């Protein structure tokens, strides 16, 4: 394994981990109410931008980061309450437009409030690259990987061990049946939006020291998260994580070995290719439709 390959692997897996978090956000909301939330990317943007804003305001990084996770979670709940909930029964295309409308509102407000410029956030710990096998790894990458892994494990435990998590799972399997056994499904929806927004925000915070942030980074990051969720098969948590890592890796490898101009195109080529052969993604349920 050459040093070059290892270098691309490191950068791919780092970005891929953030795609995985974003894809998990898509999956959570998709499972809860069958909505593809195109505002997911804005949560990523909010995480990064708010952290920068709070840090510049003089808050220490940990507190700034916590605030920058809570605020998007509140935005997620508001989105559910004021845009998704009143539109229940609308077609899937209408719901897509609603979430796109919401993403415009979020992006627009941030653009007015924090301006159009790009913002820097210092790395969480040192900037000293670590040399491994001829390649270098930034400490920030370790932060990304570590926190992302912790989030995934925490989410897994949440779904397996807590009543709230099981309530979400039950609602995603069958909302009516969940309601009948006394699960407040409305509350489950809001919790899913809050969790999904928080996942996105964490991804945004982790990524900002590596890639900078601005009011419009959410568009591409969100779309790539969507790609990752579909690669894995919509609705599958495992699929979302695998899809995120795969998209990140393929993107980094092709940027390194083929052409960096088309780096952003790679996830979309990948998804078309996968869907042509596996119409339901890698881990999607093989459903036969009943007539």
């Amino acid at each position, binding site marked *: 394994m050459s040093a070059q390959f290892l270098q691309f692997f490191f950068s791919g897996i780092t970005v891929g981990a953030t795609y995985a978090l974003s894809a998990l956000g898509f999956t959570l909301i998709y499972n809860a109410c069958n909505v593809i939330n195109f505002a997911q990317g804005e949560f990523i943007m909010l995480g990064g931008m708010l952290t920068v804003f709070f840090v510049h305001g003089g808050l220490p990084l940990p507190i700034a980061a916590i605030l920058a996770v809570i605020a998007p979670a509140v935005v997620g709940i508001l989105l559910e309450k004021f845009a998704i909930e009143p539109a229940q029964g609308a077609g899937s295309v209408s719901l897509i437009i609603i979430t796109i409308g919401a993403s415009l509102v979020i992006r627009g407000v941030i653009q*007015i409030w924090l301006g159009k410029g790009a913002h820097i956030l210092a790395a969480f710990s040192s900037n000293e690259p670590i040399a491994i096998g001829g390649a270098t790894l930034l400490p920030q990458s370790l932060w990304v990987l570590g926190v992302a892994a912790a989030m995934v494990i925490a989410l897994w435990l949440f779904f397996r061990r807590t009543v709230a998590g099981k309530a979400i799972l039950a609602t995603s399997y069958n909302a009516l049946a969940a309601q009948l056994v006394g699960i407040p499904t409305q509350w489950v929806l809001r919790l899913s939006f809050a969790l999904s927004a928080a996942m996105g925000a964490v991804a945004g915070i982790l990524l900002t020291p590596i890639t900078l942030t601005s009011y419009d980074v959410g568009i591409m990051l969100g779309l790539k998260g969507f790609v990752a969720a579909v690669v894995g098969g919509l609705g599958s948590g495992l699929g979302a994580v695998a899809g995120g890592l795969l998209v990140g890796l393929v993107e980094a490898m092709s940027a390194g070995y083929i052409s960096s101009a088309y780096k952003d195109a790679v996830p979309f080529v990948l998804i078309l290719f996968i869907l042509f052969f596996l*119409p339901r993604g890698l881990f999607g349920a093989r459903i036969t439709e009943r*007539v």
Partner: protein
Amino acid sequence: MKHRNTGLFLLAGILVALPLLLPNSYYYDIAIRMAINAVVALGLNLLIGFAGQVSLGHAGFFGIGAYATAILTTHFGWHPLSALLAGALGAAALAALLARPIFRLRGHYLAMATLGLGILIAMALKNEAAYTGGPDGMAVAPMSVFGLQMDGEQQWYWFFSANLLFSVWACRNLIDSPFGRALRALHGCEVAAQVAGVNVARYKAIIFVFSAFFASIMGSLTAHYVGFVTPNVADFFYSIELVTMVVVGGMASVFGSVLGAALLTALPQALATLEGWETVAFGTILVLFMVFLPEGLVPSLSRRFAGRP
């Protein structure tokens, strides 16, 4: 069917009367853009509203037309008409090639695939700077056909108005034809349509190719009209705008698409006075529309006023 053509005459009347109300070329420009978007939205509505197949990448086909015209007339000295035709055939061929694998997909997977397709086209236009001028775009010569040169907003206005009227007429005839009934049948229930003898895959492919062809032609004409193309013509956001026009106007409503296109073209212009808040206002209005009129303007209004189901 006595009043079948009332809407068409009404539209014609509006298009003829409109110039009396348009004070200057800025308003002509908006009216022209409305007509352009209306025709593209009509084609997309055949796919989304009537056949029930979502496409989030339709601007890609529009972009193919625009750039085919720009590149072939500028770099290769082609005649505008042959460039337009080449673009439209290219877009149709791409649609035909991808129709089979893409329409095996359903729902959000279909949305993902069409979205990806549109984004890839836009990125190709942005990155192949040697031909396309990259993100800055490129100039396009004005259109002259048979010695007649199109210039001035007024000329273009009549041209695009006639174009719109013809498209509305053609769409309505298409929908009322056996072909249109087959499309609506497969929207209702694919299996039932198949049982009734509709070749589902073939019909989806045909309407996809048809709407791509439509979009590409409009892209070519727009390139000539504006005199300049940028990769934004194939942008993801334009795809979304087109879908929004269809949905806001009303799925499976021909006049809905025209109204939706007019509204969504005028809205950003009207909001431009808000100085910075236009994105927020536009997003809010989109959400409000979808929440309060999920079926779209024309179906909701016609139900309210005519008392029809």
